[in-house]
Protein backbone atom coordinates (compact mmCIF):
# COMPACT_ATOMS: atom_id res chain seq x y z
CA UNK A 1 0.00 0.00 0.00
CA UNK A 2 2.66 2.41 1.08
CA UNK A 3 4.96 1.52 -1.77
CA UNK A 4 2.17 2.24 -4.24
CA UNK A 5 1.59 5.69 -2.74
CA UNK A 6 5.26 6.48 -2.86
CA UNK A 7 5.47 5.35 -6.44
CA UNK A 8 2.43 7.38 -7.48
CA UNK A 9 3.62 10.71 -6.13
CA UNK A 10 6.42 11.54 -8.60
CA UNK A 11 4.40 10.51 -11.64
CA UNK A 12 1.92 13.31 -10.95
CA UNK A 13 4.64 15.73 -11.95
CA UNK A 14 4.97 14.12 -15.34
CA UNK A 15 1.17 14.40 -15.69
CA UNK A 16 0.67 10.86 -16.86
CA UNK A 17 -1.79 8.62 -15.09
CA UNK A 18 0.30 5.84 -13.54
CA UNK A 19 -0.91 2.45 -14.65
CA UNK A 20 -1.25 0.08 -11.70
CA UNK A 21 1.13 -2.38 -13.34
CA UNK A 22 3.91 0.22 -13.51
CA UNK A 23 3.45 1.18 -9.89
CA UNK A 24 3.69 -2.48 -8.99
CA UNK A 25 6.82 -2.97 -11.10
CA UNK A 26 8.35 -0.01 -9.34
CA UNK A 27 7.51 -1.47 -5.92
CA UNK A 28 9.16 -4.75 -6.91
CA UNK A 29 12.14 -2.82 -8.27
CA UNK A 30 12.61 -1.01 -4.97
CA UNK A 31 12.34 -4.32 -3.15
CA UNK A 32 15.05 -5.89 -5.32
CA UNK A 33 17.18 -2.78 -4.91
CA UNK A 34 16.89 -3.09 -1.13
CA UNK A 35 18.08 -6.70 -1.27
CA UNK A 36 20.99 -5.80 -3.51
CA UNK A 37 21.95 -2.96 -1.16
CA UNK A 38 21.91 -5.36 1.79
CA UNK A 39 24.14 -7.82 -0.05
CA UNK A 40 26.52 -5.02 -1.06
CA UNK A 41 26.67 -3.79 2.54
CA UNK A 42 27.49 -7.29 3.73
CA UNK A 43 30.34 -7.73 1.24
CA UNK A 44 31.63 -4.19 1.73
CA UNK A 45 31.83 -4.61 5.48
CA UNK A 46 33.46 -8.00 5.05
CA UNK A 47 36.04 -6.40 2.76
CA UNK A 48 36.78 -3.27 4.77
CA UNK A 49 35.80 -4.17 8.35
CA UNK A 50 38.44 -5.18 10.94
CA UNK A 51 39.04 -8.92 10.98
CA UNK A 52 38.23 -9.22 14.66
CA UNK A 53 35.23 -6.89 14.49
CA UNK A 54 34.96 -3.82 16.66
CA UNK A 55 35.23 -4.34 20.40
CA UNK A 56 34.44 -1.50 22.79
CA UNK A 57 35.36 -2.46 26.33
CA UNK A 58 34.12 -6.00 26.68
CA UNK A 59 31.38 -5.71 24.11
CA UNK A 60 31.81 -6.58 20.46
CA UNK A 61 29.59 -4.03 18.65
CA UNK A 62 30.53 -5.15 15.13
CA UNK A 63 30.97 -8.80 14.12
CA UNK A 64 34.14 -10.49 12.95
CA UNK A 65 34.60 -10.45 9.23
CA UNK A 66 36.25 -13.87 8.92
CA UNK A 67 34.80 -16.39 6.48
CA UNK A 68 33.67 -18.34 9.51
CA UNK A 69 31.46 -15.55 10.84
CA UNK A 70 30.46 -13.98 7.56
CA UNK A 71 30.73 -16.27 4.55
CA UNK A 72 30.61 -14.59 1.15
CA UNK A 73 27.13 -14.15 -0.30
CA UNK A 74 28.04 -16.32 -3.27
CA UNK A 75 29.38 -19.06 -1.00
CA UNK A 76 26.09 -19.12 0.90
CA UNK A 77 24.16 -19.12 -2.36
CA UNK A 78 26.37 -21.77 -3.91
CA UNK A 79 26.13 -23.98 -0.84
CA UNK A 80 22.37 -24.19 -1.37
CA UNK A 81 22.96 -26.28 -4.47
CA UNK A 82 25.38 -28.75 -2.92
CA UNK A 83 24.34 -31.89 -1.07
CA UNK A 84 23.57 -31.59 2.64
CA UNK A 85 26.28 -34.04 3.64
CA UNK A 86 28.94 -35.97 1.83
CA UNK A 87 27.03 -39.18 2.47
CA UNK A 88 25.81 -41.18 -0.51
CA UNK A 89 22.35 -40.07 -1.80
CA UNK A 90 22.18 -36.96 0.38
CA UNK A 91 19.60 -34.38 -0.71
CA UNK A 92 20.67 -31.08 -2.15
CA UNK A 93 20.71 -28.44 0.63
CA UNK A 94 17.96 -26.13 -0.67
CA UNK A 95 15.61 -29.07 -1.00
CA UNK A 96 16.33 -30.22 2.53
CA UNK A 97 15.62 -26.68 3.77
CA UNK A 98 12.48 -26.42 1.63
CA UNK A 99 11.10 -29.68 3.00
CA UNK A 100 11.77 -28.57 6.56
CA UNK A 101 10.29 -25.14 5.80
CA UNK A 102 7.11 -26.62 4.36
CA UNK A 103 6.60 -28.68 7.54
CA UNK A 104 7.05 -25.54 9.63
CA UNK A 105 4.76 -23.60 7.30
CA UNK A 106 2.04 -26.21 7.75
CA UNK A 107 2.36 -26.04 11.54
CA UNK A 108 2.42 -22.23 11.45
CA UNK A 109 -0.67 -22.22 9.22
CA UNK A 110 -2.50 -24.47 11.69
CA UNK A 111 -1.42 -22.15 14.48
CA UNK A 112 -2.51 -19.13 12.47
CA UNK A 113 -5.97 -20.56 11.85
CA UNK A 114 -6.44 -21.42 15.53
CA UNK A 115 -5.04 -18.04 16.59
CA UNK A 116 -7.22 -16.09 14.17
CA UNK A 117 -10.31 -18.00 15.24
CA UNK A 118 -9.61 -17.43 18.92
CA UNK A 119 -8.72 -13.78 18.30
CA UNK A 120 -11.93 -13.13 16.36
CA UNK A 121 -14.07 -14.85 18.98
CA UNK A 122 -12.42 -12.85 21.76
CA UNK A 123 -12.98 -9.63 19.82
CA UNK A 124 -16.64 -10.54 19.24
CA UNK A 125 -17.20 -11.23 22.92
CA UNK A 126 -15.38 -8.05 23.93
CA UNK A 127 -17.41 -6.01 21.47
CA UNK A 128 -20.67 -7.55 22.66
CA UNK A 129 -20.09 -7.02 26.37
CA UNK A 130 -18.19 -4.01 27.51
CA UNK A 131 -17.61 -5.82 30.81
CA UNK A 132 -15.83 -8.60 28.92
CA UNK A 133 -13.61 -6.01 27.29
CA UNK A 134 -12.51 -4.46 30.56
CA UNK A 135 -12.11 -7.90 32.10
CA UNK A 136 -10.27 -9.65 29.27
CA UNK A 137 -8.22 -7.00 27.50
CA UNK A 138 -5.58 -6.53 30.25
CA UNK A 139 -5.08 -10.31 30.39
CA UNK A 140 -4.76 -10.51 26.63
CA UNK A 141 -2.05 -7.88 26.71
CA UNK A 142 -0.40 -9.52 29.73
CA UNK A 143 -0.41 -12.88 27.90
CA UNK A 144 2.12 -11.53 25.42
CA UNK A 145 4.65 -10.73 28.11
CA UNK A 146 5.08 -14.41 29.01
CA UNK A 147 8.40 -15.49 27.48
CA UNK A 148 7.84 -18.08 24.81
CA UNK A 149 10.91 -20.12 25.74
CA UNK A 150 9.57 -20.66 29.24
CA UNK A 151 6.14 -21.45 27.95
CA UNK A 152 6.94 -24.04 25.27
CA UNK A 153 8.06 -27.00 27.42
CA UNK A 154 4.99 -26.56 29.63
CA UNK A 155 2.67 -26.79 26.64
CA UNK A 156 4.51 -29.87 25.44
CA UNK A 157 4.26 -31.66 28.77
CA UNK A 158 0.57 -30.77 29.14
CA UNK A 159 -0.13 -31.88 25.61
CA UNK A 160 1.59 -35.22 26.08
CA UNK A 161 -0.96 -36.06 28.78
CA UNK A 162 -3.91 -35.49 26.48
CA UNK A 163 -5.40 -38.63 25.05
CA UNK A 164 -9.06 -38.73 24.15
CA UNK A 165 -10.26 -41.99 22.61
CA UNK A 166 -8.41 -42.49 19.33
CA UNK A 167 -7.11 -38.94 19.46
CA UNK A 168 -3.58 -38.65 20.70
CA UNK A 169 -1.73 -35.38 21.13
CA UNK A 170 1.08 -35.01 18.60
CA UNK A 171 4.24 -33.04 19.25
CA UNK A 172 3.60 -30.76 16.29
CA UNK A 173 0.33 -29.72 17.91
CA UNK A 174 2.25 -28.23 20.83
CA UNK A 175 4.21 -26.16 18.34
CA UNK A 176 0.99 -25.08 16.59
CA UNK A 177 -0.55 -24.08 19.94
CA UNK A 178 2.45 -21.92 20.72
CA UNK A 179 2.31 -20.37 17.25
CA UNK A 180 -1.39 -19.63 17.79
CA UNK A 181 -0.55 -18.07 21.14
CA UNK A 182 1.47 -15.43 19.33
CA UNK A 183 -0.99 -15.14 16.43
CA UNK A 184 -4.19 -14.51 18.35
CA UNK A 185 -3.04 -11.30 19.96
CA UNK A 186 -2.89 -8.87 17.01
CA UNK A 187 -6.15 -10.34 15.70
CA UNK A 188 -8.00 -9.87 18.99
CA UNK A 189 -6.82 -6.29 19.36
CA UNK A 190 -7.16 -5.35 15.68
CA UNK A 191 -10.59 -6.93 15.24
CA UNK A 192 -11.91 -5.27 18.40
CA UNK A 193 -10.73 -1.90 17.15
CA UNK A 194 -12.28 -2.63 13.76
CA UNK A 195 -15.60 -3.75 15.24
CA UNK A 196 -15.70 -0.53 17.22
CA UNK A 197 -14.78 1.62 14.22
CA UNK A 198 -18.23 2.40 12.70
CA UNK A 199 -19.29 5.95 13.47
CA UNK A 200 -22.41 6.95 15.34
CA UNK A 201 -24.22 7.81 12.15
CA UNK A 202 -23.97 4.28 10.80
CA UNK A 203 -24.89 2.76 14.14
CA UNK A 204 -27.98 4.96 14.37
CA UNK A 205 -28.89 4.03 10.83
CA UNK A 206 -28.83 0.35 11.83
CA UNK A 207 -30.87 1.24 14.90
CA UNK A 208 -33.42 3.02 12.71
CA UNK A 209 -33.67 -0.25 10.76
CA UNK A 210 -34.48 -1.90 14.07
CA UNK A 211 -32.02 -4.75 13.56
CA UNK A 212 -30.28 -6.68 16.31
CA UNK A 213 -26.69 -7.17 17.37
CA UNK A 214 -25.85 -9.93 14.95
CA UNK A 215 -27.18 -8.16 11.85
CA UNK A 216 -25.40 -4.96 12.85
CA UNK A 217 -22.28 -7.08 13.20
CA UNK A 218 -22.75 -8.77 9.86
CA UNK A 219 -23.77 -5.79 7.77
CA UNK A 220 -21.80 -3.03 9.49
CA UNK A 221 -19.15 -3.96 12.03
CA UNK A 222 -17.48 -6.89 10.26
CA UNK A 223 -17.17 -5.16 6.86
CA UNK A 224 -15.96 -1.99 8.58
CA UNK A 225 -13.33 -4.04 10.43
CA UNK A 226 -11.65 -5.35 7.26
CA UNK A 227 -9.10 -2.51 6.95
CA UNK A 228 -8.12 -3.13 10.60
CA UNK A 229 -8.18 -6.87 10.22
CA UNK A 230 -5.81 -7.23 7.26
CA UNK A 231 -2.71 -5.78 8.95
CA UNK A 232 -3.62 -7.78 12.05
CA UNK A 233 -3.83 -11.00 10.01
CA UNK A 234 -0.49 -10.25 8.38
CA UNK A 235 1.11 -9.62 11.73
CA UNK A 236 -0.47 -12.82 13.02
CA UNK A 237 1.01 -14.73 10.07
CA UNK A 238 4.50 -13.41 10.75
CA UNK A 239 4.05 -14.10 14.47
CA UNK A 240 2.85 -17.63 13.79
CA UNK A 241 5.99 -18.35 11.76
CA UNK A 242 8.27 -16.92 14.45
CA UNK A 243 6.32 -18.79 17.11
CA UNK A 244 6.53 -22.06 15.20
CA UNK A 245 10.28 -21.76 14.61
CA UNK A 246 11.04 -20.86 18.22
CA UNK A 247 8.68 -23.51 19.55
CA UNK A 248 10.31 -26.17 17.37
CA UNK A 249 13.63 -25.30 18.93
CA UNK A 250 12.42 -25.23 22.51
CA UNK A 251 10.25 -28.36 22.27
CA UNK A 252 12.88 -30.18 20.22
CA UNK A 253 10.52 -31.07 17.39
CA UNK A 254 12.31 -32.89 14.56
CA UNK A 255 12.01 -32.13 10.88
CA UNK A 256 11.16 -28.42 10.96
CA UNK A 257 13.21 -25.39 10.05
CA UNK A 258 13.78 -24.49 13.71
CA UNK A 259 15.53 -27.78 14.22
CA UNK A 260 17.71 -27.22 11.14
CA UNK A 261 18.79 -23.80 12.37
CA UNK A 262 20.17 -25.36 15.58
CA UNK A 263 21.59 -28.43 13.88
CA UNK A 264 23.44 -26.54 11.14
CA UNK A 265 24.65 -23.88 13.55
CA UNK A 266 26.41 -26.71 15.36
CA UNK A 267 28.20 -27.56 12.11
CA UNK A 268 29.09 -23.93 11.35
CA UNK A 269 32.75 -24.27 12.33
CA UNK A 270 33.28 -26.78 9.52
CA UNK A 271 30.68 -25.48 7.08
CA UNK A 272 29.83 -21.82 7.80
CA UNK A 273 27.76 -21.24 4.64
CA UNK A 274 25.44 -24.12 5.49
CA UNK A 275 24.27 -22.46 8.72
CA UNK A 276 22.77 -19.59 6.76
CA UNK A 277 20.59 -21.80 4.59
CA UNK A 278 17.84 -22.51 7.17
CA UNK A 279 17.91 -18.84 8.21
CA UNK A 280 17.19 -17.87 4.62
CA UNK A 281 14.50 -20.54 4.66
CA UNK A 282 12.90 -18.99 7.75
CA UNK A 283 12.91 -15.57 6.09
CA UNK A 284 11.28 -17.02 2.98
CA UNK A 285 8.66 -18.62 5.23
CA UNK A 286 7.77 -15.31 6.80
CA UNK A 287 7.51 -13.68 3.36
CA UNK A 288 5.28 -16.47 2.06
CA UNK A 289 3.05 -16.25 5.12
CA UNK A 290 2.71 -12.46 4.95
CA UNK A 291 2.31 -12.61 1.16
CA UNK A 292 -0.57 -15.06 1.40
CA UNK A 293 -2.41 -12.64 3.65
CA UNK A 294 -1.70 -9.75 1.27
CA UNK A 295 -3.30 -11.89 -1.42
CA UNK A 296 -6.40 -12.22 0.75
CA UNK A 297 -6.36 -8.44 1.11
CA UNK A 298 -6.47 -8.04 -2.66
CA UNK A 299 -9.64 -10.15 -2.73
CA UNK A 300 -11.26 -7.88 -0.14
CA UNK A 301 -10.52 -4.72 -2.13
CA UNK A 302 -14.05 -3.33 -1.97
CA UNK A 303 -13.91 -3.31 1.81
CA UNK A 304 -10.81 -1.17 1.76
CA UNK A 305 -12.06 1.74 -0.32
CA UNK A 306 -11.79 4.16 2.59
CA UNK A 307 -8.12 3.25 3.04
CA UNK A 308 -7.21 5.00 -0.19
CA UNK A 309 -9.33 8.03 0.64
CA UNK A 310 -7.73 8.66 4.02
Amino acid sequence: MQAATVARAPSRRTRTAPPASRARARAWGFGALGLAALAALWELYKLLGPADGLVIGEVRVLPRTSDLAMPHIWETAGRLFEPVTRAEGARVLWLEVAIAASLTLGIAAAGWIVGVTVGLLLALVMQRWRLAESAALPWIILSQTVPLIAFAPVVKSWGSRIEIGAFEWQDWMSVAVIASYLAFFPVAVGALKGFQSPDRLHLELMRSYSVGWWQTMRYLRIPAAVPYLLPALRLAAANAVVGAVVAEVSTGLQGGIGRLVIQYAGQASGDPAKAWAPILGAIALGLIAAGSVALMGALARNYRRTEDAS
Partner: protein
Amino acid sequence: MTESVITTDAVTVTAVDKVFEAAAGQVVALSGIDLVVEPGEFVSLIGPSGCGKSTLLRLIADLDTPSSGSVEVFGTSAHQARVDQKYGIAFQQAGLLPWRSVAANIALPLELHGSSSVETRERVAELIALVGLDDFGDRYPDELSGGMQQRVAIARALAKKPELLLMDEPFGALDEMTREYMQTELLRISAETGAAVVFVTHSIPEAVYLSDRVVVMSPRPGRIAAVVPMALGSTASRADDLREDGAFFEMITAVREALHGGAPASSARGVENR
Protein backbone atom coordinates in the same frame (compact mmCIF):
# COMPACT_ATOMS: atom_id res chain seq x y z
CA MET B 1 -63.47 2.71 13.30
CA THR B 2 -63.55 4.59 10.03
CA GLU B 3 -63.17 7.86 11.89
CA SER B 4 -60.01 6.74 13.68
CA VAL B 5 -58.45 5.73 10.36
CA ILE B 6 -59.18 9.12 8.88
CA THR B 7 -57.81 11.00 11.87
CA THR B 8 -54.59 8.99 12.21
CA ASP B 9 -51.86 11.56 11.97
CA ALA B 10 -48.43 10.82 10.63
CA VAL B 11 -46.82 12.21 13.77
CA THR B 12 -48.42 13.23 17.06
CA VAL B 13 -46.14 14.79 19.65
CA THR B 14 -47.90 15.50 22.94
CA ALA B 15 -46.46 17.48 25.87
CA VAL B 16 -42.93 16.23 25.28
CA ASP B 17 -40.02 17.24 27.48
CA LYS B 18 -36.48 16.06 26.97
CA VAL B 19 -33.87 16.54 29.66
CA PHE B 20 -30.26 15.46 29.22
CA GLU B 21 -28.15 14.62 32.25
CA ALA B 22 -24.83 16.36 31.84
CA ALA B 23 -21.83 16.64 34.13
CA ALA B 24 -22.72 20.26 34.88
CA GLY B 25 -26.33 19.34 35.72
CA GLN B 26 -29.52 18.93 33.76
CA VAL B 27 -29.93 20.41 30.31
CA VAL B 28 -33.50 20.95 29.18
CA ALA B 29 -33.37 20.28 25.45
CA LEU B 30 -37.11 20.32 24.81
CA SER B 31 -39.97 21.66 26.90
CA GLY B 32 -43.69 21.27 26.37
CA ILE B 33 -43.62 20.30 22.70
CA ASP B 34 -46.96 19.67 20.98
CA LEU B 35 -46.93 18.98 17.26
CA VAL B 36 -49.10 17.20 14.74
CA VAL B 37 -47.93 16.27 11.24
CA GLU B 38 -50.64 15.12 8.88
CA PRO B 39 -50.20 12.37 6.29
CA GLY B 40 -48.51 13.73 3.18
CA GLU B 41 -47.67 17.01 4.86
CA PHE B 42 -44.24 18.65 4.57
CA VAL B 43 -43.22 20.22 7.87
CA SER B 44 -39.90 21.94 8.52
CA LEU B 45 -38.35 22.46 11.94
CA ILE B 46 -36.25 25.60 12.04
CA GLY B 47 -34.44 27.47 14.75
CA PRO B 48 -31.01 28.49 15.98
CA SER B 49 -28.47 25.94 17.20
CA GLY B 50 -29.47 24.40 20.50
CA CYS B 51 -33.23 24.81 19.99
CA GLY B 52 -33.67 21.04 20.03
CA LYS B 53 -34.92 20.61 16.46
CA SER B 54 -32.65 17.63 15.81
CA THR B 55 -33.53 16.21 19.23
CA LEU B 56 -37.21 16.40 18.35
CA LEU B 57 -36.54 14.55 15.10
CA ARG B 58 -34.57 11.89 16.97
CA LEU B 59 -37.49 11.41 19.37
CA ILE B 60 -39.84 10.86 16.43
CA ALA B 61 -37.33 8.37 15.00
CA ASP B 62 -37.06 6.64 18.40
CA LEU B 63 -33.32 7.12 18.37
CA ASP B 64 -33.89 8.78 21.74
CA THR B 65 -36.77 8.64 24.22
CA PRO B 66 -38.62 11.61 25.68
CA SER B 67 -38.26 12.36 29.38
CA SER B 68 -42.02 12.90 29.56
CA GLY B 69 -44.94 13.15 27.18
CA SER B 70 -45.63 10.89 24.23
CA VAL B 71 -44.61 10.57 20.59
CA GLU B 72 -46.88 8.63 18.26
CA VAL B 73 -46.24 7.75 14.64
CA PHE B 74 -49.25 6.61 12.60
CA GLY B 75 -51.17 5.86 15.78
CA THR B 76 -48.54 3.64 17.40
CA SER B 77 -45.68 4.45 19.73
CA ALA B 78 -42.50 5.78 18.14
CA HIS B 79 -40.78 2.57 19.24
CA GLN B 80 -43.34 0.37 17.52
CA ALA B 81 -43.15 2.56 14.43
CA ARG B 82 -39.40 2.02 14.28
CA VAL B 83 -39.80 -1.73 14.72
CA ASP B 84 -42.44 -1.72 11.97
CA GLN B 85 -40.22 0.42 9.73
CA LYS B 86 -42.89 3.09 9.32
CA TYR B 87 -40.36 5.81 8.52
CA GLY B 88 -37.26 6.37 6.44
CA ILE B 89 -34.48 8.61 7.67
CA ALA B 90 -31.70 10.70 6.11
CA PHE B 91 -29.01 12.62 7.96
CA GLN B 92 -26.76 15.55 7.14
CA GLN B 93 -24.00 13.11 6.21
CA ALA B 94 -25.21 10.67 3.58
CA GLY B 95 -23.84 7.83 5.71
CA LEU B 96 -23.47 5.36 2.85
CA LEU B 97 -21.56 2.17 3.47
CA PRO B 98 -18.34 2.67 1.49
CA TRP B 99 -17.94 -1.02 0.62
CA ARG B 100 -21.37 -1.22 -1.01
CA SER B 101 -22.21 -0.03 -4.49
CA VAL B 102 -24.97 2.56 -4.97
CA ALA B 103 -27.49 -0.19 -5.72
CA ALA B 104 -26.36 -2.26 -2.73
CA ASN B 105 -26.59 0.75 -0.43
CA ILE B 106 -30.16 1.41 -1.51
CA ALA B 107 -30.93 -2.29 -1.11
CA LEU B 108 -29.60 -2.41 2.46
CA PRO B 109 -32.91 -1.85 4.33
CA LEU B 110 -34.63 -4.32 1.99
CA GLU B 111 -31.95 -6.98 2.53
CA LEU B 112 -32.06 -6.47 6.29
CA HIS B 113 -35.75 -7.17 6.34
CA GLY B 114 -35.68 -10.20 4.11
CA SER B 115 -37.08 -9.02 0.79
CA SER B 116 -36.57 -11.56 -1.98
CA SER B 117 -33.74 -10.76 -4.34
CA VAL B 118 -36.12 -10.26 -7.28
CA GLU B 119 -38.25 -7.82 -5.27
CA THR B 120 -35.14 -6.01 -4.10
CA ARG B 121 -33.72 -5.67 -7.59
CA GLU B 122 -36.96 -4.26 -8.96
CA ARG B 123 -37.41 -1.83 -6.10
CA VAL B 124 -33.79 -0.64 -6.33
CA ALA B 125 -34.18 -0.01 -10.05
CA GLU B 126 -37.33 2.05 -9.35
CA LEU B 127 -35.56 4.08 -6.67
CA ILE B 128 -32.47 4.70 -8.76
CA ALA B 129 -34.73 6.10 -11.47
CA LEU B 130 -36.70 8.14 -8.91
CA VAL B 131 -33.61 9.96 -7.65
CA GLY B 132 -32.13 10.27 -11.15
CA LEU B 133 -29.07 8.09 -10.71
CA ASP B 134 -29.52 5.79 -13.71
CA ASP B 135 -26.16 4.37 -14.85
CA PHE B 136 -24.67 4.93 -11.39
CA GLY B 137 -25.97 1.75 -9.74
CA ASP B 138 -22.61 0.01 -9.94
CA ARG B 139 -20.57 2.94 -8.72
CA TYR B 140 -19.21 3.22 -5.19
CA PRO B 141 -19.86 6.11 -2.81
CA ASP B 142 -16.30 7.46 -3.05
CA GLU B 143 -16.86 7.94 -6.79
CA LEU B 144 -19.91 10.19 -6.25
CA SER B 145 -20.27 13.90 -5.54
CA GLY B 146 -21.85 15.04 -2.27
CA GLY B 147 -25.17 15.73 -3.97
CA MET B 148 -25.24 12.31 -5.58
CA GLN B 149 -24.41 10.63 -2.29
CA GLN B 150 -27.31 12.45 -0.67
CA ARG B 151 -29.63 11.23 -3.44
CA VAL B 152 -28.55 7.68 -2.69
CA ALA B 153 -29.28 8.32 0.99
CA ILE B 154 -32.76 9.60 0.11
CA ALA B 155 -33.40 6.61 -2.14
CA ARG B 156 -32.30 4.34 0.70
CA ALA B 157 -34.65 6.14 3.10
CA LEU B 158 -37.52 5.56 0.66
CA ALA B 159 -36.69 1.89 0.02
CA LYS B 160 -39.41 0.46 2.28
CA LYS B 161 -42.03 2.84 0.87
CA PRO B 162 -42.43 4.66 4.19
CA GLU B 163 -45.28 7.13 4.59
CA LEU B 164 -43.02 9.28 6.73
CA LEU B 165 -39.63 10.64 5.81
CA LEU B 166 -37.42 12.13 8.54
CA MET B 167 -34.62 14.38 7.35
CA ASP B 168 -32.00 16.02 9.53
CA GLU B 169 -30.39 18.85 7.54
CA PRO B 170 -29.86 16.53 4.57
CA PHE B 171 -28.62 19.33 2.30
CA GLY B 172 -26.61 21.11 5.00
CA ALA B 173 -23.26 19.92 3.66
CA LEU B 174 -23.98 20.73 0.01
CA ASP B 175 -23.02 23.83 -1.94
CA GLU B 176 -25.74 26.37 -2.65
CA MET B 177 -26.35 25.42 -6.30
CA THR B 178 -26.58 21.72 -5.59
CA ARG B 179 -28.70 22.51 -2.59
CA GLU B 180 -31.37 24.41 -4.55
CA TYR B 181 -31.39 21.68 -7.16
CA MET B 182 -31.82 19.01 -4.51
CA GLN B 183 -34.67 20.97 -2.91
CA THR B 184 -36.62 20.94 -6.15
CA GLU B 185 -35.81 17.25 -6.55
CA LEU B 186 -37.08 16.57 -3.04
CA LEU B 187 -40.37 18.36 -3.78
CA ARG B 188 -40.83 16.14 -6.82
CA ILE B 189 -39.92 12.97 -4.92
CA SER B 190 -42.19 13.74 -1.97
CA ALA B 191 -45.05 14.50 -4.39
CA GLU B 192 -44.46 11.21 -6.22
CA THR B 193 -44.30 9.15 -3.05
CA GLY B 194 -46.98 11.05 -1.12
CA ALA B 195 -44.98 10.63 2.08
CA ALA B 196 -45.18 13.07 4.96
CA VAL B 197 -41.83 14.77 5.62
CA VAL B 198 -40.36 16.19 8.80
CA PHE B 199 -37.40 18.26 7.72
CA VAL B 200 -34.84 19.86 10.05
CA THR B 201 -32.99 22.85 8.64
CA HIS B 202 -31.45 26.13 9.68
CA SER B 203 -31.99 27.80 6.33
CA ILE B 204 -35.09 30.01 6.15
CA PRO B 205 -35.44 29.97 2.32
CA GLU B 206 -35.05 26.19 2.31
CA ALA B 207 -37.79 25.78 4.92
CA VAL B 208 -40.11 28.18 3.08
CA TYR B 209 -39.52 26.67 -0.33
CA LEU B 210 -40.17 23.09 0.77
CA SER B 211 -42.83 23.25 3.46
CA ASP B 212 -46.55 23.28 3.96
CA ARG B 213 -45.87 24.54 7.47
CA VAL B 214 -42.73 25.85 9.12
CA VAL B 215 -42.32 25.13 12.83
CA VAL B 216 -40.18 27.84 14.38
CA MET B 217 -38.32 26.81 17.52
CA SER B 218 -36.48 28.82 20.14
CA PRO B 219 -33.65 27.70 22.42
CA ARG B 220 -33.07 27.30 26.17
CA PRO B 221 -35.28 25.48 26.75
CA GLY B 222 -36.18 24.24 23.27
CA ARG B 223 -39.81 25.03 22.57
CA ILE B 224 -42.05 25.78 19.64
CA ALA B 225 -42.24 29.56 19.23
CA ALA B 226 -44.62 29.64 16.26
CA VAL B 227 -46.04 27.54 13.49
CA VAL B 228 -46.16 29.44 10.21
CA PRO B 229 -48.34 28.00 7.40
CA MET B 230 -46.87 28.65 3.96
CA ALA B 231 -49.44 30.29 1.69
CA LEU B 232 -47.58 29.26 -1.46
CA GLY B 233 -49.80 26.65 -3.06
CA SER B 234 -49.31 22.90 -2.82
CA THR B 235 -45.73 21.72 -2.49
CA ALA B 236 -46.18 19.48 -5.53
CA SER B 237 -46.81 22.48 -7.77
CA ARG B 238 -43.77 24.50 -6.68
CA ALA B 239 -40.81 25.06 -8.95
CA ASP B 240 -37.64 27.14 -9.03
CA ASP B 241 -39.41 30.31 -10.23
CA LEU B 242 -41.10 30.45 -6.83
CA ARG B 243 -37.77 31.58 -5.40
CA GLU B 244 -38.20 34.92 -7.17
CA ASP B 245 -41.88 35.30 -6.33
CA GLY B 246 -43.08 38.08 -4.02
CA ALA B 247 -45.13 35.65 -1.96
CA PHE B 248 -41.97 33.64 -1.32
CA PHE B 249 -40.25 36.70 0.17
CA GLU B 250 -43.29 37.48 2.26
CA MET B 251 -43.14 34.00 3.73
CA ILE B 252 -39.42 34.36 4.39
CA THR B 253 -40.17 37.59 6.26
CA ALA B 254 -42.93 35.90 8.22
CA VAL B 255 -40.63 33.06 9.31
CA ARG B 256 -37.82 35.46 10.14
CA GLU B 257 -40.08 37.58 12.31
CA ALA B 258 -41.38 34.49 14.06
CA LEU B 259 -37.77 33.52 14.79
CA HIS B 260 -37.35 36.84 16.57
CA GLY B 261 -40.48 36.52 18.59
CA GLY B 262 -42.62 38.66 16.29
CA ALA B 263 -40.31 41.69 16.23
CA PRO B 264 -38.72 42.49 12.86
CA ALA B 265 -35.13 42.16 14.03
CA SER B 266 -32.06 42.53 11.86
CA SER B 267 -30.52 39.09 12.20
CA ALA B 268 -31.08 35.82 13.95
CA ARG B 269 -28.02 34.24 15.42
CA GLY B 270 -27.33 30.76 14.16
CA VAL B 271 -29.86 30.98 11.37
CA GLU B 272 -28.93 31.37 7.76
CA ASN B 273 -30.73 34.11 5.94
CA ARG B 274 -29.51 33.28 2.49
